[in-house]
């Protein structure tokens, strides 16, 4: 058992938990939270794989990919949350 494998398995659990949260939650905000957890799991697996290569330093290409991924995730999360807030507004207006 290497640390890379250990964290890879941890990332696999994150993917499963996040995907389930994104599908099974009732609240839109919780679904977006689940989507973020799913993304984090994917990132953990990618970086665990990057550490598995032979040599003193891990694979920098995977690191750059994940760095880009984190920034794109925050962009998508912001737009999704804006939509969720706006949807909450619309539903409020309908019930009044």
């Amino acid at each position, binding site marked *: 058992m290497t640390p890379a494998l250990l*964290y890879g398995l941890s990332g696999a659990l*994150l*993917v499963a938990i996040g995907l389930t949260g994104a599908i099974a939650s009732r609240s839109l*905000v*919780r679904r977006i939270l689940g989507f973020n957890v799913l993304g984090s799991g994917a990132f953990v697996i990618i970086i*665990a794989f990057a550490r598995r290569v032979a040599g003193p330093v891990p694979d920098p290409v995977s690191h750059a990919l994940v*760095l880009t991924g*984190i920034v794109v995730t925050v962009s998508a999360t912001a737009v999704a949350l804006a939509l969720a807030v706006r949807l909450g507004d619309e539903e409020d207006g309908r019930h009044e």
Partner: protein
Amino acid sequence: MNGVAIIDVLLAAAVPVLAAAALLYRDLFRAAVVFIVLGLTIALVWVRLDAPDIALAEAAVGAGITGALFMRALGALPGPTRSAHPVRSSRFQRLAVRGAAGVFAGIVAALVAWAVVTVPSSDPVLTSLVRDAAPDSGVGNPVTAVLLNFRGYDTLLEVGVLLLAALGVSTIGAHRHAASLGGTRVRGPVILAFAHLVLPGLIVLAAYLLWTGADLPGGAFQGAAVLAGAWLICAFAGFPADVAPGRMPAVLAGGFCIFLLVAAGMVLLNGGLLRFMPATAKWWMLLIESGLLVSCAAILATLVFRLTDDDRPEAGR
């Protein structure tokens, strides 16, 4: 890499537990707090996996900015449950859904874990390519070299995605104010003292992260997230942090435009999109990163500020 240390076991166990807690807490505000803790814990995982650049980005963007986004959205959502789709269901139905979700999670976890265990560690073709070309990249940090030199167009488009998100959030969010970052004041002496204490340090830290990113962990995006945090604190403390509405588009798009101009200039100078010469690469990349630092900070701050209105009557919580 050495063997498995106790800290690795603890971190690897804590991460799924925190994730499950974030998704199971009934109170969404608590869930968001646990999510921020999860982000910081994953930042420690990056450190253990020798990925300090990602650890910085995760702590600043993944935990910090995303956490602020969730807090702001929750403050704006109506109702005690803050649920957008209230559905009536019996106790049995809820149990059935929970059970099915549990089985589903188990199957997905088993499949992905099987993939993690069985995928063979392949020969790192890209790693050796980067190592061979690194001396010509102009920077010593291989991650920065990949981000801004070898795969610069990825980063160019990434900034485009950020810009689109700022545009989208500004369009979707219902505002009465023009493109304004003001009006988010938090009252009280604590925030003022806190702002006086941390603001100078945060601004120096952002510049330091940008400069050191050339050779050590750091970079424009990590610095931008820190600068965005400073911007938010400024606005919350009531300091004049606002940019004139007419200038805001220029601040938001400036980094992307500089990046695009440099990319086009390299076609004329060196005959390829973002193809740098080893002697001058460092300075072109520094120019791009300086633009990105300011623009990405403005974009991240805009994402948080423009997510919702501040003077909404129903948001008084």
